């Protein structure tokens, strides 16, 4: 089961999602044992995903907040049935 570098780049997400077939898992392990370029590639894919998770949250605008406050208050005045 020989996996080329090009094939490995197409299996990167399946690997991370844990849905590889046994053959592919073995093929990737063998490939990574000698291919530092693909190790770098997978590290960068992991970093890309982690950087997306590290994006700062967006703060709600003043308009949204005041709109919300008024919605909550009108709901308090007219409690649901």
């Amino acid at each position: 089961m020989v996996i080329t570098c090009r094939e490995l780049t197409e299996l990167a997400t399946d690997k991370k999602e844990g849905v590889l077939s046994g053959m592919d898992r073995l093929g990737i392990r063998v490939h990574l044992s000698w291919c530092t370029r693909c190790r770098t590639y997978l590290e960068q894919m992991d970093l890309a995903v982690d950087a997306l998770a590290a994006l700062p949250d967006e703060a709600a605008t003043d308009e949204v907040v005041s709109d919300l406050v008024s919605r909550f208050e009108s709901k308090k005045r007219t409690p649901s049935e």
Partner: protein
Amino acid sequence: MSRVARSMAPSHAEDVVQETWAAVIDGLDRFEGRSSLKTWVLRILSNRAKTWIKREKRLDLEHIFTEEAAVEETAVAPERFSRIGNWSAPPAAWSERTPEAIVLRMETGMLLARVVEELPQAQRIVVTLRDVEGLSSDEVCDILGVTEANQRVLLHRGRSKVRSAMERYLSEP
């Protein structure tokens, strides 16, 4: 919330957010805690956004996902491999090696956020929900009503594009 709304229906994001808040406040008494509050809110938001998408494009989201997943696309530009599939232009080492340093380097995330915004619609939605918002694959498929296989293909392409965009900012000469 507005980030997810923009990923789904960029030209109606404000409407989607407003409608979602209204529905959330109305329905809060009925929230039963069977899912997390976050997924519950995002499911409402996704339904509102789907309505807008359908109104605008006359297409179901599921249809858009299937179409986009069917397009042939590679994770890495084919010319970076030799004829037998080995790297001919391998990935260079990056100047930053932690997620925080990368975000900082990319104008405190502004450039990175733009990369996501420029992804094709279905890829953008999946990457936003999975990677930016941190939902699981099951949650995303459930909220959007798409198949796991399509979701995974689109996630793969979206992530591959994000990596390749980062490469332009972070590759050491």
